[in-house]
């Protein structure tokens, strides 16, 4: 609904109109919450940061240029807040490097319902150690490049790439085991 609203009118109403704010919230909360949860891996923190991101977005709606979808813009605010939280709280992100690389080619999506496949990938993602799961999520689902990830997490760009590759192989390994098991 909100994407169809006149851009300027939407911005004006988003500042003060609780009804429009609620509509935007209901339309975008899942995407924002999922992003927060993927980064923080804690339902309470994820909800808090999701709420903070919406309030921040409504308050600073003047800086929204309309170049991205409103939901993506709010999501970006939420991601930044979550990453700042990790940095501020000095949350130790453990990056694993002792996995065996999986070289076998896995056809993930053959003859399977996409929703079920997505659930399996999510299950596999949850099996990953924190560090590489975070990097994988930031790169694939939040579409951050490795240079940005490295900067935000205070690691080397090469580490980000390596962790991502390991995460991908590990997911494939988990999925293969699950399918054959």
């Amino acid at each position, binding site marked *: 609904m909100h994407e169809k609203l006149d851009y300027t009118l939407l911005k004006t109403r988003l500042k003060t109109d*609780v009804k429009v*704010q*609620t509509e935007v*919230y*209901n339309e975008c*909360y*899942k*995407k924002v*919450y*999922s*992003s927060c*949860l993927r980064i923080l891996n804690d*339902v309470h923190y*994820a*909800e808090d940061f*999701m*709420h903070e991101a*919406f*309030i921040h977005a*409504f*308050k600073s709606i003047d800086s929204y240029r309309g170049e991205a979808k409103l939901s993506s813009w709010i999501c970006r605010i939420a991601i930044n807040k979550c990453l700042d939280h990790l940095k501020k709280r000095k949350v130790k992100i453990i990056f694993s490097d002792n996995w065996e690389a999986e070289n076998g080619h896995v056809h*993930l*999506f053959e003859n399977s319902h*996409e*929703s079920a*496949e*997505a659930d399996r*990938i*999510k299950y596999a993602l949850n099996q990953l150690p924190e560090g590489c799961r975070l990097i994988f999520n930031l790169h*694939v*689902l939040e*579409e951050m490049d490795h240079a940005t990830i490295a900067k935000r997490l205070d690691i080397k760009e090469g580490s980000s790439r390596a962790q991502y590759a390991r995460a*991908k192989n590990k*997911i*494939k390994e988990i999925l293969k085991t699950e399918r054959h098991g």
Partner: protein
Amino acid sequence: MDEFEKYMRENEELFNNDEPAEGHEARFLHKLKQADEKKAKSAVDFWRVAAAIILLLVLAASVLIPRFNSPQDVQYSSMSLSDVSEDMANVELYYKSKLAAEYEKIDDLSKTDPLVKAYLDEIDTLNEEYQNLEATLYKSGTHDKVVLAMIENFRLRLALMEKLEAKKLNKTNIDSL
């Protein structure tokens, strides 16, 4: 981008469907209300502080500005005779040129001579009074009494200068005897 990334990005909505705990919307609206109240309160506080600062500045200015008003400041808020009318401009020009000529004539007098010093002090006092009269003229508008007082001031200064010059001539004559 490999098959894996492509699949996840193309089916983004399947990975963005997590549901927060029940009551999340009510909790959000509560936080939103609190944030609005805080914003409104800080806006009120801002204007209160701003009003207090403005009041303090006005009070400080009203107390301090008169104290720092130097004669130089007065010059900027004064009017000369030439601002009154063309005739008065001629009067002012006449006296100023006469006074300048007299100053030149007495320039070589010893400023430490008590008699000369007394004359010069009197002329300085009249100068200061003249500046005050210019300020008064600016404040009161072209008031006849002020204009007359200014002319009288010029006349007195010129008379003193002429007397001083006469004493100089007298002294020169005595010295030459």
